[in-house]
């Protein structure tokens, strides 16, 4: 159940230039969160901007602690990068609808672009046993941009790494990786479930490819939000049925067919 409480930093570690993992002690959330859900954080420190900021849950020990991964992109994340163990956040969560695993599928393919990896890593950790094969496709521009959080190696999950400059893994994008996996296995389309998280343009391409191949696809999206519970209606995502969905309450995980990608890319 969603609640508002205090999260205390256990550990805040840089995993590569500008990217960090943060372990938070927050029993009210750790006990009941699922992959794809998120938390809203407001640092209880001087200089924090006005609103809380949303972060996907990267992992949970199921009892007291959750981890998030973040990249320094603005004032809030910059402040977070300087916070130490023992410092606190006002936190709301767990929020939103997570991924829905489809046990009738034999293959799960998780496609992560850039900083999109956290909810997919959580998915792989939690649901690996439900599928015969689970593949995590990681894509980034360069080796330096590639985000492989510490402790990600999950038994039974096949990792496929792509960089656009070929400096690590295969040369290409996460989308090439997805096309390769779907293509190579010559699977029945009903046997594959794709889940994805990353930049909006990438998600749009993943959604397009999956639609072409007739493969089911769930995406975890990002939009600027405020309340996190569907009250303020800030985090609008154009809906294919017309009007808008709201990332916090209807998502952040959507079936990719629910989103009007063309309209969303224009914004």
């Amino acid at each position, binding site marked *: *159940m*969603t*609640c*508002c409480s205090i999260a205390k930093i256990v550990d805040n570690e840089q995993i590569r230039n500008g990217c960090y993992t943060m372990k938070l002690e927050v029993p009210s959330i750790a006990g009941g969160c699922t992959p794809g859900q998120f938390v809203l954080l*407001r640092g209880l420190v001087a200089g924090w*901007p*006005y*609103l*809380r900021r949303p972060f996907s849950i990267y992992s949970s020990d199921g009892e007291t602690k959750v981890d998030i991964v973040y990249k320094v992109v603005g*004032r809030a994340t910059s402040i977070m990068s300087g916070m130490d163990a023992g410092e606190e956040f*006002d936190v*709301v969560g767990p929020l939103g609808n997570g991924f829905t695993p489809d046990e009738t599928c034999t293959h799960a393919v998780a496609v992560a672009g850039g900083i999109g990896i956290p909810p997919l890593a959580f998915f792989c950790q939690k649901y690996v046993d439900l599928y015969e094969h689970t593949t995590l496709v990681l894509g980034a521009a360069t080796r330096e941009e590639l985000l492989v959080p510490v402790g990600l190696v999950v038994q039974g999950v096949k990792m496929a790494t792509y960089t656009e400059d070929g400096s690590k893994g295969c040369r290409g994008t996460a989308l090439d990786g997805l096309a390769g996996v779907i293509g190579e296995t010559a699977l029945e389309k009903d046997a594959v479930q794709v889940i994805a998280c990353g930049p909006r343009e990438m998600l749009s391409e993943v959604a397009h490819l999956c639609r072409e191949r007739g493969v089911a696809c769930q995406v975890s999206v990002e*939009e*600027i*939000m*405020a*309340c996190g*519970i*569907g*009250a*303020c*209606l*800030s*985090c*609008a*995502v*154009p809906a294919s049925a*017309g*009007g*808008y969905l709201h990332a916090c309450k209807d998502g952040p995980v959507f079936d990719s067919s629910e989103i009007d990608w063309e*309209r*969303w890319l*224009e*914004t």
Partner: protein
Amino acid sequence: MNLEVKIGETVLATPLVGASGLFGYGNEYEGLLDFTSFGAIVTKTVTLKPRQGNPPPRIVDVGVGIINSIGLENVGSSVFLGEVLPAVDIPCKLFVSIGGETPEEYRKIAGLFTGSGRVDALEVNVSCPNVARGGIAFGSDPESTYRVVEGVRVETALPVIVKIPPLVAGLEEVCRAACDAGADALTIANTYPAMAIDIDRARPVLGGVTGGLSGKAVKSISLALVWKAAGSVSVPVIGAGGIETADDAIEFILAGASAFQIGSVVLRDMGAPSTIVEGLRTYMQGKGYGNLPDFKGKAAGEEDTGGEE
């Protein structure tokens, strides 16, 4: 100690009111907010037909507050009355914010709430664009304010609160027009026209280009407007704009507000409603006040000699 406030014939248990837009239709914060601290909450603005709202991004954090451009997204009057309203279950009064594109639409929607039971008052959002006048807000001049409120008054026996936009020339005239047309109370004010620009992309941040600024940045401006409005009308004034602490709320009451609204602060602190009401009690106890009228407007008697600088 008695914190009750009367708006028309409706009695609020406390002077703290949840501002329109932040609290959805009433139930969204169930289990998260202490609704017993609230005298009432105001719903999102409901219009006759559903509205899709503005393209994203709809909100931007500017540090001292937020700018929003939701665009009045709402489910429309028929879904609101048929599905949403019957499910509202909160232990405080419920005010419904209503909006329209013509005075006729305001009149029609006001009529729909007569006898709906759960609704305790209507808050008329006259910041909606007046389509017949090129989209200028109804509340920007006394005459169109009068026309909107007059129609609503005819249609409903519920208390009518008129929410006045902040940057209007002749605020007192607009306030008086609303009262002449039958308003039982005024909310002063709405969000302030504002914008933010993405300097990398060299374009406005918000999908709606401009939006409304709220949060602590606007508190002192709203306080002066409340002081001005309270001095020009005899109906209760509900102060709104950037109230985040008990001290802020007390300032508004001392300026002449009978009640006050909070909004943006709950986006950062869900404990704010109880903290504010607790702090208000402590202040009243310390000063020996038993009721809000004991100090309402106590700082408002002074003449304005400061000008604008």
